[in-house]
């Protein structure tokens, strides 16, 4: 699925790297614990999280992820947006809760991580 397709599915707002929306993601991972993300996730995974601090962006950088979705209407700080911008990571924000955001991606056949 292209990141572009995630936007309407999650009624998400695009926060940066709009020119990277055609990047493909093959699965998604929802977590607020960064070590869990680092344990199992591969590149081309979208990360859904309610956690807001620069380590979220750095975790994505470590595994070469290209898309982070902040759930429950959370917004990253300008510092986080700058870091994501520099590393070509698309940041999205959705008002949906984690459960529903993951559920919508799951039923639209974005495979689960693992």
């Amino acid at each position, binding site marked *: 699925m292209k990141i572009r397709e995630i936007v309407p599915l999650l009624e998400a707002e695009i926060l940066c790297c709009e020119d990277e929306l055609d990047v493909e993601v093959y699965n998604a991972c929802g977590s607020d*614990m*960064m*070590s869990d993300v680092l344990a199992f996730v591969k590149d081309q995974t979208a990360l859904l999280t309610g956690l807001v601090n620069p380590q979220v962006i750095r975790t994505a*950088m*470590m595994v070469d992820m290209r898309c982070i979705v902040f759930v429950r209407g959370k917004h990253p700080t300008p510092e986080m947006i700058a870091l994501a911008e520099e590393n070509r990571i698309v940041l999205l924000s959705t008002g949906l809760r984690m459960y529903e955001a993951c559920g919508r991606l799951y039923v639209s056949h974005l495979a689960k991580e693992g």
Partner: protein
Amino acid sequence: MDEALKFHFVIDGDNFTSAGEASVEVKKKLRQLGFPPDVIRRVSIAMYEGEINMVIHARGGVADVLVYPDRIVIILEDHGPGIEDIDLAMQEGYSTAPDSVRALGFGAGMGLPNMKRYTEEMHIESTLGVGTTITMVVNVQ
């Protein structure tokens, strides 16, 4: 032993926000040197977990990375409290981190297991009240 490229970093123990910057730097260097993406990812994840641990458990420390053509060696040294029971610390889910750290997305007790998962070799030397040195080796296949 063949010549190694050496990188040295000081990890600031008072700044959670900047934790991980050394790992990012190593990742960039390894990319410039043309190492395979899988090797780069394993090195950077292992070092990142170690860097975070030094900040949340040990008031910072130093990191040295030795880059050989066939392997990358990461040495993390701190003068924190030390690890009382290394076998216990290595278990998935074991953590002494306070809730304040868990609220920052770490402290799930998966850091040391991740470091082991992504490296070929990992040695922990730790003395209570003196500090901890962790050496990890990632082979370049």
